[in-house]
C-alpha cells in the first residue's frame, strides 16, 4: 500500500511540476526534494500542496514544522498523506 502511494506521489510530483530531467521511477523515496536534492523550490512546494489537496483531499498547514518535515522526501509525504487520510 505505502509503496503504491509513494509511486503515486512520485508521479504526481513529476507531472504537476513538469519535471523533465527525471522520471517517477528515478526519484528515490528518501531523496531530499528541495534545494540540492531534486531541486524543487518554494513555488514548487506550494503547487505540490495544491496538487496533494486536489488528489487526496488533505489540507496542509504551511507554517507547521510537521509540514516541513513531511515535504522533505517522498516516503515522508506518503506517511503524511496516509495519516491525514486515516484521521479524516
Amino acid at each position, binding site marked *: 500500500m505505502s509503496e503504491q502511494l509513494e509511486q503515486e506521489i512520485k508521479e504526481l510530483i513529476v507531472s504537476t511540476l513538469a519535471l*523533465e*530531467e527525471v522520471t517517477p521511477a528515478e526519484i528515490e523515496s528518501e531523496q531530499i526534494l528541495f534545494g540540492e536534492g531534486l531541486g524543487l523550490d518554494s513555488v514548487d512546494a506550494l503547487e505540490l500542496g495544491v496538487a496533494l489537496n486536489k488528489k487526496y483531499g488533505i489540507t496542509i498547514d504551511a507554517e507547521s514544522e510537521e509540514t516541513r518535515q513531511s515535504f522533505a522526501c517522498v516516503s515522508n509525504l506518503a506517511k503524511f498523506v496516509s495519516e491525514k487520510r486515516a484521521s479524516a
Partner: protein
Amino acid sequence: MSDSFCSLADLFADSSRDSLCFGYADTTRLSFGSFRAGVARLARVFRQRPEHSWCLVAQDTHLFAQCFFALLYSGKKILLPPNAKRGMLEELSGNFEAIATDEQHLLEQGFATVFLPEYVSLPSLSVDGSSDLILPGEPLSSADCEVIVFTSGSTGDIKAVHKTLVHFDAEVAALELQWGACLSDGLVLSTVCHQHIYGLLFAVLWPLAAGRPIFNRAVYYPEAVASILSRHRGEKGQAKNILVSSPAHLSRIPEYLDLAPYRESCARIFSSGGPCARETVADLWKRGALEVTEVFGSTETGGVAARVQENGRVSSNGKDYWAPLPGVEVSSKDGLLAVCSPFFSEDSELENSCFVMGDSVELSDDGRFRVLGRADRIVKVEERRFSPAEMESLLCSHPHVAEASVQILESERGSLGVRDIVAVLLVPSKEGWDVYSRTSRQSFLAELKTLLAGRFEGVLLPKRWRIAHAIPLSPQGKRVAAEIRVLCAAPIASRCEPETLSIDFRRAELRLEIRAPADLRVLSGHFPGFPVVPGYLLVEWSLDSFRRFFQHEAEAQRFESVKFRRMLLPNERCVLELRYSRGATRFEFTYRDGDGVLCSGRVVLRPVSSDNREESEIREEEDVRAEGEERKEEVPVLPKEYHSEERARE
C-alpha cells in the same frame, strides 16, 4: 587619413574625384565619374516627382549609394527600412510616400515606386559617363539632408531614429581618423546589409568619403567572401581590403575553408551588431591568425567604441574593454553607459546631451569601459527581479561554457495554470563538449547548477536546460529570441527525443542538427553493452519534427522505402532533413552525417481536412490498391519490435 578623403557633403562638388575607383561590380572596375553620372540621372528623376519622403531599399550596394545621394540632391527625405519584406513596409508605410528600389517584387504591392535599374542600367555604369549629366557643383546642405534609420528593440518593436548628413559626416571623419592611416585603398567587402546603420556607415558612406572602392553587393557566404577577397589582391598582391562583417558571419566560417584569403588580403576585419564570442575570436586566431576589430554602437548613437580582443587565448582578463572612438565621450549614469558624441541629434531622449544606453557598464581609469550586460532585460520571476544577463555572464565564466542565453518561459502546470520558469540555452566550449560527451547530461549540468545555486535563489534556478551548437543569430548578429525560445521549449521530457542543436527552416525544407542523447531512455537493453538508437525512433523523430514545423496534427498513414544504412549511436550528432511541398500528402526524411546517409524514407500522411475527407479517403484507398505490390515492403505504423529486429539483423 586617405589623401582623397572628402566630406559626404562635398563629394559631388566638383569633378576632381571622377577618375578614382568607386567600386567593383564583380570584377568590373567602375569610376567615380560614372557613379556621379548615375547620381545625376536619378536626381533628375526624383526632382520631377511630387513625393517628399522616400523609402529606399535596394540589394545592389552601388544602386543604393547612387539613389541615396540622388535623393539628398533632390531635397528628399530618406527612410531606410531594415528589409524589403512586405509586412515591414506596410508597418512603416505611414512614414513614406514612395519607394525607390531594385526589388522587382515591390512593384506590384500598390506603392508608388521608382524602379532604379530602369534609370541606371548597370552596364552603362562601366562606361565613363561623366559627361552625361552634371550635378550642381555645390556642396549639399548637410543639416537639411534627413535620413531615418530604424532599430528593432530587443522586444521586437521598431523605432525610428532621425539623422542628418551632419551626423554621418562627423562619424565618417572619426572612423577615418581612427583607422584611415592603416588602411590603403583596398576593396570594401561587406557581409552585412547596408539598410542598417553599421552597414550604411562602414560599407557605403565611409568608403565613399575615403575613396575606397565598394563591392556591389553584400556577400553572405564565407566561400564567396574568400573567393572575392582572393580576386582582389591588387596588382602586387598586396591590396589591403576591408571586410565589414558581424559575429553571425565570423562565427560560421566552415572549418574546411582556408582562411588564407582573409588573412593575406584584409587590412582589417570589422565586426559589429553584437559582441564577438571569445571562442570565435580564439578560433579565428588559431585557424588563420585573424584579428577582429569590434565596433560597439547602436542605431541611436552610431559608433561608440572599438576593441580588439586578445587573440589565441580564451582568457580575456582586462582585454574586453572598449576604447571610445575619436570625439566620443562616455560616462556612467546610474551604472548605465551614457554616450556623448557628434554622431547623433541633440534633441532625442537626452540627459545633459548624453544618450543613456541600455547596457550596464564598468568604467576604467583610462576612459575605457566594459559592458556587463543589457540592463533593460530585468524581468520579474515570481516577484523577484531577475537579470538574465547576470545569469548568462555567470554561466559564461565557467570553462565548460562558450555562450549562454537565458530565457523566461511559461510552463504549463495542468489545473494549476501556468508558471514562469527560467530556461537556459547553452553552447558548451570545446572543453565542455568533451566533458558532455564523456559523461552524462546530468553530470555535465550538475556543476553548472551548483554554480548558479551559489548566487541565485531557488525559484530563479533554471528548470530547463538545452544544449546547442550555437545561439541563433540574425544576419545582423543579434540573438533571435523567437528561435532561442523554440529551442528551449522543445521537450526532452521523455528523453526519447533528440536534442536540437540548430534549425534551418525554409519553406519546403527543414534541416535540424540533432544529437542523440547519451542517456536516451529506450537504450537500456538495446543492446546490452552496445547502446544503439533504435530505428523506429529515427522514424518517430522525423514525424515529430514534421509536426513541430509543418503540420501540428499530422498523422502517419504509412511509411515507405524506409532504409537503415548505418547506426546512430548515443551522443552522436547528425542532420535530419525533411522535404515537404505544402499540400502534399507525404514528406521525405533523411538522416545524414558527414560521411553519408544513416537512414531515409517517406511518410505518407493520413488525410486530415474534414471538408474533403471522404474524397481523399477514397483516393488513398485507390492509391493503396494501385501500389499493392510496393506496399508489402512498407513498414507498418508502430510495431516497434519489428524495427528493432530489423536493426538487430543489420
